[in-house]
């Protein structure tokens, strides 16, 4: 800054800085601010602002024509390498999927075999148990039935005996009566 312009530029600089920190500057005004702060004769009191502004706005817009198009500046082969990385990840994913499927299938097969063996072994034991249980149960039932039948038979068989006794009593009485009559007749 030339001495005669320092006061004028300082006023302008102060105004632009205030608007910069209020985020009110246009891109054109930012370029002007960067230009003023880049002056070798810049007073020391603006050094901090120079570092802040050039560190921010000075990098985003590096030409008076406006902010350059940084999107086109990629290294050579960038997109090719990027697509290659995606393809590699895709192959890894497919291999992982095949491996997981094979492992699952093997696990299911092994589980099926183990369960089948255990189940069939369990069946034999269960069957033996079942047979044992059925025999004991049947035996108990059979005994119970037998006792019931015996009781029934005994009960049933008592009736004719009782009837016979009644008849015997009757006939016995009849015979006794006859004998008494005979005795009476002999007297």
């Amino acid at each position, binding site marked *: 800054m030339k001495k005669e312009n320092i006061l004028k530029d300082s006023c302008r600089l102060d105004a632009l800085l205030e608007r910069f*920190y209020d985020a*009110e500057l246009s891109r054109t005004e930012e370029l002007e601010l960067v230009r003023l702060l880049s002056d070798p004769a810049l007073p020391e009191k603006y050094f901090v602002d120079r*570092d802040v502004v050039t*560190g921010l706005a000075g*990098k*985003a817009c590096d030409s008076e024509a406006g902010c350059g198009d940084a999107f086109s*500046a990629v290294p050579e082969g960038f997109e090719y390498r990027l*697509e290659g990385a995606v393809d590699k990840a895709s192959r890894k994913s497919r291999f992982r999927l095949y491996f997981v499927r094979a492992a699952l299938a093997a696990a299911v097969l092994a589980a099926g075999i183990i369960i089948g063996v255990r189940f069939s072994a369990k069946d034999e034991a269960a069957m033996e148990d079942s047979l044992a249980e059925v025999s004991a149960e049947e035996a108990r039932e059979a005994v119970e039935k037998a006792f019931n039948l015996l009781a029934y038979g005994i009960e049933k068989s008592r009736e004719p005996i009782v009837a016979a006794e009644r008849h015997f009593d009757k006939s016995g009485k009849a015979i006794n009566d006859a004998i008494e009559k005979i005795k009476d007749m002999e007297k």
Partner: protein
Amino acid sequence: MDTAGFKQCMMPYARQMYAVALSILKDSSDAEDVVQDVFLRMWEKRSGMSSVTNLKAYLLSAVRNRSFDIMEKRRSDGDKGVMELSDEGKDAGQTESKDAVSRIIGLIAALPEPQRTVISMHDIEGMEYDEISRLTGMNEGALRTALSRARRRIREIFKG
């Protein structure tokens, strides 16, 4: 989603992602690594991509955050290009523009959101308010407020 479909979705944003990473990291190789890293992470999550309403905003945000993470790691590893926060402002008058930029980016990485995102998108990446508004969902007034606070905060740290 198959590989071809994934590439079709993602590749249109690759260059802009690279530009964002480069503007923060200032290193071509690191910037390319960041983009590739984000691509591969998106590949792992490709089944959920359809639920992302604004893919461009999502990707640029991912690249930005990843780049700032690398900047933070550089600072903690004692990279020569980046000064510690406590040293800010001590020799501000003697640093060159390149060092100032590195320091600024280091400070931006430490800002709270949304200041970090807004100042990065506007000042580092050179986006206009309307595009930032579309990507972030914030109105221009809120963007200017966040940007103002971020710039003033950085200045306070530089002053010491």
